[in-house]
């Protein structure tokens, strides 16, 4: 049986190197729209006052006649888009996932999904890696509310290239689609040659001991975890489940029949997301132990994006803990009542908070009750260490 990285996945060579290219997935959306602008005259783009941060401004610049400026109104945008779709266009509606589909869910449900109108909903700033903007802008419930909707295709691509492919693919298939992507730079680990097809999960790494099903930027973390586990003799199969609906039952089931246990990983609530979709499918077909990596029934918060991924337990070390746990469960061994990946992340979050806040307070200027320096010193260029 093959082991290690799937050569047919055509991933980058420097998969785990420090110099791996970092680009936000939203860039892939912008690039995909640009290409669609050239190839498909029916594609139009709507944006609710966030054209730069959703990267739809690239399309706006090249195809101003097919860019439709919305105000800050996601509800109307969804219904207006349905109007465009019913009149024969392929509208992409662009905003933050928290607002669209967060705010306009009913308009999407009735006017796009129930109408089976050809509307493409693009939710930027999904996940906690949004960073300092905080909980209101970190959408981690969108997969749940969109995958429950009949007629809706739900896509959560894993890096910039895949987001570009997903954008282009969404336009080529009739019907309502939801496409989620993020704000922060993340590893570009697939290549233009990496296969992509809506509805088909890609096996990026072969293994026989455990199946890791991941989506979004966490797929790269899953690969990192698999690499580390391999050193300890655990071979993990890593599946990029970019299409959450319709779920690729065939690929996932074939892997799970081989491994007998599953870890799911996503930048979303651990409940009701991609992991839950996998659980539903397994419960009906082939029940095995599953551990779900995700946000543990809480909201996000302000902080550095990478720090948040760590503090919320969404990175490789926690995936490894989940793998060890699920393998132990499959083998009938005793495990702790509360999973280690939850307690470890909680501790990590508490430690990081203490460290970050005390470091900041130590530099408080005199005007704000501190002892060191003034506000003038605070805002001055940081002196380079000699």
């Amino acid at each position, binding site marked *: 049986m093959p082991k290690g990285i799937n050569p047919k996945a055509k991933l980058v060579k420097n998969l785990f190197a420090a110099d791996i290219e970092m680009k936000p997935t939203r860039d892939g959306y912008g690039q995909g729209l640009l290409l669609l602008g050239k190839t498909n005259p029916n594609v139009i783009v709507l944006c609710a006052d966030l054209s730069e941060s959703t990267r739809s401004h690239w399309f706006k610049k090249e195809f101003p006649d097919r860019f439709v400026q919305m105000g800050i*109104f996601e509800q109307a945008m969804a219904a207006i888009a349905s109007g465009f779709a019913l009149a024969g266009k392929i509208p992409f509606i662009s905003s933050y996932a928290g607002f669209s589909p*967060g705010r306009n869910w009913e308009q999407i449900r009735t006017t796009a999904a129930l109408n089976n109108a050809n509307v493409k909903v693009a939710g930027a700033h999904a996940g906690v890696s949004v960073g300092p903007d*905080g909980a209101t802008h970190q959408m981690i419930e969108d997969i749940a509310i969109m995958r429950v909707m009949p007629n809706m295709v739900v896509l959560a691509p894993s890096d910039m290239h895949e987001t570009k492919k997903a954008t282009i693919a969404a336009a080529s298939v009739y019907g309502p689609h939801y496409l989620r992507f993020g704000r922060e730079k993340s590893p570009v680990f697939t290549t233009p040659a990496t296969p992509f097809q809506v509805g088909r999960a890609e096996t990026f790494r072969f293994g026989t001991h455990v199946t890791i099903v991941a989506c979004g930027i966490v797929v790269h973390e899953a690969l990192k975890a698999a690499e580390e586990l391999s050193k300890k003799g655990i071979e993990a199969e890593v599946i990029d489940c970019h299409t959450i609906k319709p779920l690729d039952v065939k690929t996932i089931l074939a892997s799970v029949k081989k491994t007998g246990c599953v870890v799911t990983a996503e930048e979303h609530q651990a409940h009701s997301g991609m992991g839950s979709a996998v659980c539903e499918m397994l419960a009906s077909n082939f029940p095995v132990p599953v551990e779900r990596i995700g946000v543990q029934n809480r909201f996000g918060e302000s902080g*550095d994006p990478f720090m948040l991924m760590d503090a919320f337990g969404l990175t490789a070390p926690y995936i490894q803990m989940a793998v060890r746990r699920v393998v132990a469960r499959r083998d009938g061994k005793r495990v702790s009542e509360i999973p280690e990946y939850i307690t470890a992340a909680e501790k990590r*979050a508490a430690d990081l908070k203490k460290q970050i*806040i005390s470091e900041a307070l130590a530099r408080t200027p005199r005007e704000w*009750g501190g002892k060191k320096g003034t506000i003038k010193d605070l*805002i001055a260029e940081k002196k380079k260490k000699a």
Partner: protein
Amino acid sequence: MPQVTRKPEHLHDKKLQKLEELAMTVRRDIIAMLTEAGSGHSAGPLGMADIFTALYFHVMVHDPKKPDWADRDVLILSNGHICPVRYVAMAHAGYGPKKEMMTLRKFGSRLQGHPERERYPGVETTSGPLGSGPSIAAGMAYTFKYLDKKPNRVFVITGDGELDAGVIWEAALFASRNRLHNLTWIIDRNNIQIDGYTEDVMPIEPLVEKFKAFNFHVMEIDGHNIREFVDAVEEGRAVWEKPSVIIARTIPGRGVDFMEFEPYWHGVPPKRGEEAETSMAKLRTLDGLIRSEHE
């Protein structure tokens, strides 16, 4: 327990000058805080510094030591992204230690990038996604007026780009239908939103006529003139049969000349070093209100 006096206090010239000076300090702290945070919104907070200073230090009945005091006036910030100005005004009012301003947008801070009630009760409501503030304010005003029959006033601040949202006008219908005279809606009319000038992105004028048509008592003021603002609040207090709206004409980025009127500065902070230092220097000379050794 503080005395509940809801009689309008006359704004003496001396107090006015104090408020104006305090507003400049608030601006200084906004710039310092954003520079330290390394992300956040500059234009809105600087533009609303005068009004927030007036609200916290003259207009509102409140007790920083008891943020949930039942007799307080309530301030709902609907456009949550301008929270730095609220955090600074609250720090100066005594809701928390001033040093807390060092922690804006950092992991573990009460000062979230968008305000959160569960972390910092004085901010009254969580906000960020635009448009919901007037509805929350209307719900509270209805409670005070009809259910609890109490004199608390409710203030709500929205942006102007925010007025694009349909829910804004749903709240306006509700407030005027229920004659919520205890509700004062303050609109930060600075003419910018993220994608550009409001009248280019999604025109909202004629705004005065719109609110008149929704049966509001409408006042239009210079949002940097604290006396005009205080007078408008008092005028609204005297109108029994309608909710009030104060359209405050403000300059986004007010006080830092290169930020003023520029949509670019909607959502970015000054960079540490020259940009932040220049911002601070520009501020220090504004209208000659603040004099310093750096002039």
